[in-house]
């Protein structure tokens, strides 16, 4: 039992707009976090160092509408050094020199013998050392945001109608109506929307509804220096994302996958979807989110059955032989 999804584009509706966040080009600069705060006048949420990574905003919340996640892994990014061209390398000559020259120390030499390992380097244990002594690791960075779900649980459960679907197919809180009941917060399967403790109301990304209205792109997409955050009509973004995944796969980055782009998933597809380089939960995203209201008709049936049972129970209590 979910509300109607986003409006079908027609004469009186602009197409559904959204974000495609391509995390493979994210450099973790947090320009989006800053631009969002600036434009939307989002209050400060404390300048804390978490100590776990360069991430100091931890998660999406009422005062963090863009959140850049940082993950460090002992794993090379695809099978190549990005930005290095090997077009001029004659591999047959290189193979002939294997084990002969210092530049090609030969098979088995990528990990140093335990005795030769640098202090602290896990010799032969996890990730191999490159010939130049560097370990192979990768940084995953990803700018998270409200997904503007097709079937948005927050919107479905809002008792006041404060959360609504805009003409752009996005999900926005009307702050002059929200009474701070807090129901939307545990309803969101992504942990996005949250309550401001001092203000009592619920806040989240509006996909810059005010900017969209005048034809501007959202502040975060505007500020992103690498175009990791791309804004546009959802249909176009989906096509672009599909070709980007194909491009990355052919370049050997087999980890690349889309998240939230499938209209058949548990929330009917996200208006803001992602290209990820690992499983969603590594980034703090649920692997298979489902809009809770999908089961609501069934929930009402069970509650009705329980109500009938209760009535019957009380009736039975008054029946039969009793000493008053």
């Amino acid at each position, binding site marked *: *039992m*979910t509300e109607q999804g986003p409006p079908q584009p027609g004469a009186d509706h602009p197409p559904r707009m959204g974000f495609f966040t391509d995390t493979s080009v994210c450099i973790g600069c947090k320009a989006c976090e800053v631009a969002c705060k600036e434009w939307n006048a989002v209050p400060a949420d404390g300048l804390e160092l978490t*100590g*776990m990574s360069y*991430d100091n905003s931890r998660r999406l*919340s009422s005062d963090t509408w863009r959140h850049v996640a940082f*993950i*460090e*892994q*002992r794993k090379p990014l695809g099978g190549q050094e990005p930005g290095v061209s090997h077009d001029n390398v004659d591999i047959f000559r290189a193979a002939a020199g294997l084990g002969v020259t210092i530049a090609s120390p030969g098979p088995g030499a990528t990990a140093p013998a335990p005795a030769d390992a640098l*202090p*602290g380097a*896990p010799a032969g244990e996890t990730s191999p050392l490159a010939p130049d002594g560097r370990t192979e690791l990768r940084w995953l960075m990803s700018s998270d945001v409200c997904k503007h779900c097709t079937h948005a*649980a927050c919107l479905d*459960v809002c*008792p*006041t109608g*404060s959360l609504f679907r805009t003409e752009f197919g996005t999900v926005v809180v009307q702050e002059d*109506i*929200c*009474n*701070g*009941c*807090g129901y939307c*917060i*545990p*309803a969101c399967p*992504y*942990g996005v929307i949250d309550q401001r*403790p001092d203000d*009592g109301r619920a806040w989240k990304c509006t996909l810059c509804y005010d900017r969209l209205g005048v034809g501007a792109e959202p502040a975060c997409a505007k500020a992103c220096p690498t175009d990791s955050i791309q804004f546009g009509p959802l249909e176009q973004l989906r096509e672009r994302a599909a070709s980007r995944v194909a491009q990355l796969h052919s370049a050997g980055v087999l980890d690349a996958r889309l998240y939230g782009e499938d209209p058949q998933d548990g929330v009917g597809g996200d208006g803001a979807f992602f290209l990820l380089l*690992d499983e969603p*939960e590594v980034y*703090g995203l*649920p*692997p298979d*989110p489902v809009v*809770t209201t999908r*089961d*609501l008709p*069934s*929930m009402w049936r*069970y*509650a*009705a*059955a*329980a*109500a009938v*049972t*209760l*009535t019957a*129970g*009380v*009736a*039975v*209590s*008054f029946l039969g032989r*009793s*000493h*008053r």
Partner: protein
Amino acid sequence: MSESDVTPEGVRGARPGREAVTGRAAGRRRRGGRGERPVVPEAEFSTYYGMPVLNPPRWEALDIAGYLYLGGLAGASSLLAAGAHLTARRRLALVAKSSATGAVSLSLVALIHDLGRPERFLNMLRVFKPTSPMNVGSWLLAGYAPLTMAALLSDVSGRYRPAGAAATAGAAVLGPLVTTYTAVLLADTAVPSWHDGYRQLPFAFAGSGAAAAAGVGLLAAPVAETAPACKLASLGAGLELGSTQVMKRRIVLTSEPFEQGHAGTLMRASKALTVGGTLLAVCAGRRSRVAASVAGAALLAGSAMLRFGVFRAGVASAEDPKYTVVPQRARLKKQRNKPSAATS
């Protein structure tokens, strides 16, 4: 943050500092530890630095668990009141009507108190929205609360008897819905332990509400009129304990929070009080005033603890990424295996 210790044998528990190996301390997490009783085989899964995936409910336990409890008590009391009214148990009817009115009024106070903007409470009735259990509940209470008051007023004043009887009947129709809708209120969220329990929670709440209403009857009505309350206590307790038992069997992983930590303590206390109160009521509730009072108080307390236990268990399940990630992973795996199973 640092938990290192300097001991004569050197530094213990130090963070690795510049010798840190990437990806060791963060990102991947193997569960175990914390003395948890493994109900299912430990699953290995990834998280983002062990942070929760969901935002847990920001509700105050006292307000919202209290609201669930009082709603349950009120609804079942209205049924008890109607039964007592029909069978001319005047005192029991009066007690049950007072309990319904008092409980529903207090529950409204708790609900409004928990709003971030209490002055905007009436925005709840701005729209009618069947997809929002809180909206449906607000409409339900808007219809139900005045009926309980009318029923009580007519009984106390002895005037407008037909209208009073009609109000009593109306409250008895809406009452059971007030008692069980609160289970939908919890279940219609992404909170794993609440959502997964959506089939059993309404029955547990119905049973618990019945036990609480019986408790009020035992506590305040003359012993001569408590026979139905005693029966209701045992039926309610049976329903409550039966459905929580079924819930534990049906939902494997996400029923864990009901047995652990603070929530587990509350659930066990609730069970003990409900069972004890019921036994005492059945054995001595119709003879001894003291026994009836003690049994009634125990049933009321047990019912309250059930709501607080369920509330806490849900919050705990939202705060641990395990309960979000592992079941969803399992679901994906099942979906992926399905097509291949069909072809083989």
